[in-house]
């Protein structure tokens, strides 16, 4: 009897099994965290220029341009790095070992995405309530970064369970624990952003290297034999 669901899982598993996605996500998280650090801790770097631009072009237009450029840059880095890794690592090297699968747009299930989003939202909500109660507005941002850490942890744990990728279990566990320590460490919000980003970038890069090492051990043949 054919197990259709198992075959479909094995196909989706391709996207995460080789570790390429881990490198791309690590890079993206690191960039976002550096962006957070610059925004919160180094306002002298960007605030005067942003003010001048706002005076020159008007607040609304300048705001839209600044945010638009930031998100466009993040999107370009994310897509560009994935395409580059796909071409260099997957198409030129890994396709000789395990073949090539072009995935659909959404590889992660809606259930996983919804759970991750819920965790993020809950952290923000609880953080806001505590911040109002204690009277420290910075707690909202700490809660937001903690929510982000837990969101990643839950997402990778669920992807690991769903697609049977065991290396994501320690990644999720270590990430969840260290996210708490970082969120409540005596650091500025910018430093928390940077530390959180570095934590997840290191965890995912380690996970990616582990997966690639396993892939490197597989036999290689250039001809597909079709």
């Amino acid at each position, binding site marked *: 009897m*054919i197990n259709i669901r198992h075959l479909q899982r094995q196909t989706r598993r391709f996207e995460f099994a080789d570790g390429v996605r881990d490198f791309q996500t690590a890079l993206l998280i690191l960039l976002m965290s550096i962006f957070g650090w610059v925004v919160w801790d180094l306002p002298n770097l960007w605030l005067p220029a942003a003010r001048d631009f706002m005076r020159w072009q008007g607040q609304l237009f300048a705001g839209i341009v600044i945010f638009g450029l930031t998100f466009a840059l993040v999107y370009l880095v994310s897509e560009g790095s994935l395409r580059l890794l796909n071409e260099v690592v997957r198409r030129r090297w890994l*396709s000789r070992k395990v073949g090539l699968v072009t995935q659909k747009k959404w590889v992660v299930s809606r259930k996983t995405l919804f759970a991750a989003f819920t965790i993020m939202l809950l952290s923000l909500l609880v953080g806001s309530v505590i911040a109002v109660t204690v009277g420290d507005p910075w707690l909202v941002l700490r809660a937001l970064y903690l929510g982000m850490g837990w969101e990643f942890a839950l997402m990778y744990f669920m992807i690991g369970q769903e697609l049977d990728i065991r290396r994501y279990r320690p990644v999720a566990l270590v990430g969840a624990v260290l996210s708490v320590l970082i969120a409540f460490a005596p650091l500025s919000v910018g430093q928390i952003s940077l530390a959180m980003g570095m934590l997840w970038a290191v965890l995912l890069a380690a996970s990616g290297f582990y997966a690639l090492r396993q892939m490197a051990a597989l036999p290689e043949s250039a001809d597909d034999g*079709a």
Partner: protein
Amino acid sequence: MEREVQDITSIDRVIHEPARLAIVAVLSSCESADFKALLGITGLSKGNLSAQLQKLEEAGYLTITKGFQERYTHTTCALTPAGQDAFKAYWARYKALGGVLNLE
């Protein structure tokens, strides 16, 4: 029960064959897959996979693109819209029949 019996007899036989069902199941969950990936996931032999791919292509359920990658052949397969519809219909019928058979 008569309707279910009719459903069984009208099931898509091109997809119902186990090797072809495995291929279509894999291709239904991605945009495309190459020959080597299909070999690894389905566990079929090269000869069997080639033959079944040809049958699915003849039925209009998939497209096979042959190209070259550094002097070597590279074969990529993807379901056509007709293949996707056929698999969806097959899967819906399969699940419905499974439900009926479990109840009996």
